[in-house]
């Protein structure tokens, strides 16, 4: 096998992965950067092809750029097998031209390279077209799996479950090989991500050279200035150096400062970021590899991907948020077996400061967990519907896709009309053809688009729950390292328009926040306190935003935000309920109780990334000196996305560790009264006021037993005075053409509606209308309860077509040809001509319910010019609307009658108009009666059976539950 790829030997971890694949298991390789994971994927593919020579593979990369980096490598590796490049590997993603897509679908390569988005939106919804690939799918390689965390991770979990179901359905039997950076609890993570048992290989056999590590903690100088000095010193000494920044703007700034400091270096240093064209990036990589460039300043864009050669120094300008990321970046230097240097320049924030004060943590191997929650209802529901659109689901599919939560989820989705049960029961499908289009993989709800003012070019999207916090009018929004100012919202289009700007400030909202505990799901002791986990509703009222200087963070100006709707977030969180007497203890010891709670909340959230990888918007917090539901001091930390993303659960499980580290941070920070390195948060919605760092430390001493609560330490009045004045929980008809004339009744025939035939069960009706009542179906009179009063079924026919009056926007000009009512209790039909219209209006108004098909939008609109707007007061039941609301689109009466009752309409609207023109109102009346009878039968079937039937575009017959 090795010989096939032109190799002589493998590292131990590559061989171990291969062994697991040979045993038929899925395997995760959690090994450092540059340890040869791609080779392991290819060896695993060869192992599968040894058993099944036709087996192919799907390589999934999180980013398009990463896939492009790997294409050449994979093609070259497979060349010894005699495969032409296009036979060996192809990329199928959003950038693949349409002509190539068809070719790739028809003749899939051995390795198809794609990303989760394309799987979700392109491949799975068209799985039949992909049958040649799915049917022989032997391996799925998931690279950079640690990227799939939080909301994105939960979505990708479901995309992978959908993929496995369909691949198996087409005859494939894929094994999964995944690769990740070194992370905490890797097996639990990958098993959650994929929903399958995995073998873990995390003992790397790849060589690693000695790495020197320096920590720099600037106190009197800007960290960026210092980083520029470090970079300049390294480059001038002739060492190939990469400096990683957290933002594109900083990348450009350091690059510019370095050139100003030492113009001689201008040609030996470059900046590198994601916004560059691929060819520009390749040129930088080539120059770096060749040694032509000595320094590069980069965003995270260069932290993974192609080997840029043996760099000597990696400078981390700010701790990148996790050990996994830090070591991944450090791993970019010293990739050959030679010594290298890593320099971490700490920022003034809690996490950076903790890390540089605790080098033992940096080297401990205590990598953070990567968490996701596939059980998030919003996300799981959406993907079950998507799966149901791809192929109807049976109970086995539901269990495979959703586990034990599946049946209840199906029940809920059927009740809401998002899934439809087949008429023969036991299978479910989506009434919508492409529900996938409504599921953005990086958010939990319908996202807003951020678009460029003027051109309308899409810059990105953001979750609605974040809109007013990150992208309110006036907000400075960072996207792909570039800065924009949001100018305005276009709510109807869910668009926020923004313009590019160069500013030296950032924005931060001021808001009032309240939280309500909806349900406590778990609870345990935490020292003398109680720790609880559960569902929360967080209501935030955004009131203003402030502009703060980028360097120094002082506020420049504050601007009100008016008419912002209250933001409600239902999520999960964990909260600490402090013992009675906590506030009294704080007051007695002259701490600020609200400030203490607030500071504790900030510091704990600041250090949360030590437990699990997350960024600043993933978590929220709120603190109370007295929470109204429990009348105790409480600190809440919650997931910042509807339904939760798994972080709060991790916090609940590891709270002791989090609070112990928070206590150390507060003890070690040598500031007087709180600073950005300990309790000041850059995103606090109350402007970091009040904060009491020492009070927070006292509360942590209470948790670990070094202090005691003192219920009667001070008089009540003193406590009340201490709490007064501080809000808690603050953080964070005009138409063209002729004027409308009320039509005058003109029909010569007798008024007041003429009685005609009655419903005749099971028998053809002799005299004009009505259709044969379906056998076995109870009559409407039998189905109405005594107290429901008088119900009428109703329909109208018009004199003119939509085309004749200028379109469907002018229904009120169509004119009444005639109307038919059917009394549900007596079974009596009545026909109403134009001259009877006022009597018809009175009859409809007197009914307890008027049942029709499109009665609201059509029939009443036809009558309105005759009877005025009061006709809208009729109590209607519009069957069309009920069904539209349930399944999301309209179905015709003919379709529903045929599928539900086996009855076709006797004619159609165009035929009726032709009869009107020919003066054959007798035929129009019969047709209208038939439609009314059909409406009545459809209503009766729905009421009697609890559902009506329809047929999907895929030919599946499904039940639409109705409750009318």
């Amino acid at each position, binding site marked *: 096998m090795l010989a096939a790829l032109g190799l002589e030997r*493998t*590292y131990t971890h590559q061989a171990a992965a291969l062994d697991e694949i040979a045993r038929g298991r899925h395997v995760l390789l959690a090994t450092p950067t540059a340890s040869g994971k791609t080779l392991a994927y290819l060896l695993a593919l060869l192992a599968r092809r040894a058993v099944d020579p036709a087996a192919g593979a799907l390589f999934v990369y999180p980013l398009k750029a990463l896939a492009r980096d790997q294409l050449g490598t994979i093609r070259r590796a497979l060349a010894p097998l005699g495969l032409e490049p296009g036979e060996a590997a192809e990329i199928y993603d959003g950038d693949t031209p349409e002509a190539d897509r068809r070719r790739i679908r028809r003749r899939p390569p051995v390795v198809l390279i794609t990303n989760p988005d394309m799987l979700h939106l392109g491949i799975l919804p068209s799985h039949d077209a992909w049958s040649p690939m799915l049917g022989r799918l032997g391996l799925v390689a998931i690279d950079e799996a640690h990227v799939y965390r939080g909301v994105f991770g939960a979505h990708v979990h479901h995309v992978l479950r959908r993929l496995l179901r369909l691949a198996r359905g087409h005859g494939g039997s894929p094994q999964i090989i995944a690769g990740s950076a070194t992370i905490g609890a890797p097996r639990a993570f990958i098993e959650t991500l994929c929903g399958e048992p995995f073998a873990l290989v995390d003992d790397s*056999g790849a060589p690693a050279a000695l790495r020197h590590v320096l920590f720099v903690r600037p106190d009197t100088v800007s960290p960026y200035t210092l980083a520029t000095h470090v970079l300049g*010193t390294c480059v001038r000494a002739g060492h190939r150096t990469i400096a990683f920044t957290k933002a594109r703007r900083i990348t450009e700034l350091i690059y510019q400062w370095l050139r100003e400091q030492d113009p001689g270096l201008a040609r030996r240093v470059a900046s590198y970021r994601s916004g560059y064209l691929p060819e520009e990036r390749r040129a930088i990589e080539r120059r770096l590899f060749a040694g032509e460039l000595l320094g590069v300043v980069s965003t995270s864009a260069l932290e993974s991907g192609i080997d840029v050669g043996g760099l000597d120094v990696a400078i981390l300008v700010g701790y990148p948020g996790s050990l996994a990321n830090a070591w991944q970046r450090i791993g970019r230097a010293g990739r050959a*077996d030679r010594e290298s240097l890593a320099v971490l320049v700490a920022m003034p924030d809690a996490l950076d400061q903790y890390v540089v004060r605790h080098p033992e943590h940096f080297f401990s191997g205590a990598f953070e967990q990567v968490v996701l929650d596939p059980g998030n209802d919003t996300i799981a529901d959406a993907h079950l519907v998507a799966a149901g659109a791809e192929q109807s689901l049976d109970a086995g599919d539901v269990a495979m896709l959703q586990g034990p939560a599946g049946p209840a989820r199906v029940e809920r989705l059927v009740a809401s009309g998002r899934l439809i049960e087949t008429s023969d029961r036991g299978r479910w499908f989506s009434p919508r053809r492409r529900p996938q289009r409504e599921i953005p993989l990086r958010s939990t709800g319908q996202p807003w688009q951020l678009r460029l003012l003027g051109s309308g070019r899409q810059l990105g999207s953001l979750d609605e729950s974040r809109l007013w916090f990150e992208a309110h009018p006036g907000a400075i929004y960072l996207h792909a390292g570039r800065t924009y100012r949001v100018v305005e919202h276009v709510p109807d289009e869910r668009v926020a328009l923004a313009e590019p700007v160069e500013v030296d400030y950032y924005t931060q909202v001021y808001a009032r926040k309240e939280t309500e505990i909806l349900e406590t799901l778990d609870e345990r002791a935490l020292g003398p306190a109680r720790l609880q986990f559960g569902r929360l509703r967080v209501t935030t009222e955004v009131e203003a935003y402030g502009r703060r200087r980028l360097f120094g963070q002082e506020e420049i100006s504050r601007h009100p935000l008016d008419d912002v709707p209250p933001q409600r977030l239902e999520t999960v969180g964990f909260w600490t309920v402090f013992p009675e007497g906590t506030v009294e203890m704080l007051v007695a010891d002259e701490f600020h109780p609200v400030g203490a709670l607030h500071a504790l909340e900030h510091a704990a959230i600041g250090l949360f990334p030590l437990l699990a990888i997350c960024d600043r918007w993933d978590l929220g917090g709120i603190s109370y000196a007295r929470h109204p539901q429990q009348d105790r001091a409480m600190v809440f930390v919650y997931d910042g996305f509807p339904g939760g993303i798994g972080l709060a659960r991790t916090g609940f499980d590891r709270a002791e560790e989090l609070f112990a580290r928070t206590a150390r941070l507060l003890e070690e920070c040598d500031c007087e009264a709180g600073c950005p390195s300990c309790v000041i948060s850059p995103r606090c919605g109350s402007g970091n006021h009040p904060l009491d760092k020492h009070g927070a430390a006292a509360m942590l001493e209470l948790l670990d037993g070094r202090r005691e609560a003192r219920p009667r330490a001070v008089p009540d009045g003193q406590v009340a005075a201490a709490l007064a004045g501080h809000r808690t929980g603050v953080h964070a008809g005009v138409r063209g053409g002729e004027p409308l004339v009320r039509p005058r009744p003109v029909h010569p025939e007798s008024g007041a509606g003429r009685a005609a035939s009655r419903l005749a069960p099971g028998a053809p009706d002799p005299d004009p209308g009505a259709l044969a009542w379906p056998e076995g179906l109870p009559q409407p009179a039998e189905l109405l309860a005594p107290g429901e009063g008088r119900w009428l079924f109703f329909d109208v026919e018009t004199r003119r077509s939509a085309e004749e009056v200028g379109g469907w926007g002018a229904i009120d000009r169509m004119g009444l040809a005639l109307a038919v009512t059917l009394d549900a209790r007596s079974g009596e039909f009545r026909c109403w001509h134009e001259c009877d219209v006022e009597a018809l209006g009175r009859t409809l108004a007197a009914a307890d319910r008027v049942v029709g098909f499109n009665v609201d939008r059509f029939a009443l609109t036809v009558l309105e010019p005759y009877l005025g707007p009061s006709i809208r007061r009729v109590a209607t039941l519009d069957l069309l609307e009920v069904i539209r609301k349930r399944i999301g689109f309209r179905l015709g009466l003919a379709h529903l009658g045929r599928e539900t009752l086996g009855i076709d309409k006797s004619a159609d609207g165009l035929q009726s108009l032709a009869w009107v023109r020919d003066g054959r109102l007798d035929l129009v009346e019969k047709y209208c009666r038939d439609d009314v009878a059909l409406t009545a039968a459809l209503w009766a079937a729905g009421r009697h059976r609890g559902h009506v039937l329809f047929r999907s575009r895929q030919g599946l017959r499904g039940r639409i539950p109705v409750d009318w």
Partner: protein
Amino acid sequence: MPSPPAAAPAGREARAWATLQDGMRRLIETLEAHPRIGPHLVYRGRAEGRAAAFAEPRTG
């Protein structure tokens, strides 16, 4: 996709590498002595390297 190095560096290459390692130590000393950087250095440590571990040759 890195391949395991075929052999330890030898001859001219080995001398070049040794020079580089010396250079790395000198660089650290330079940073420590730098008037703007040195006062802010709060920690110097190292992560030990390790040799490559190859799987036993196997057939199949």
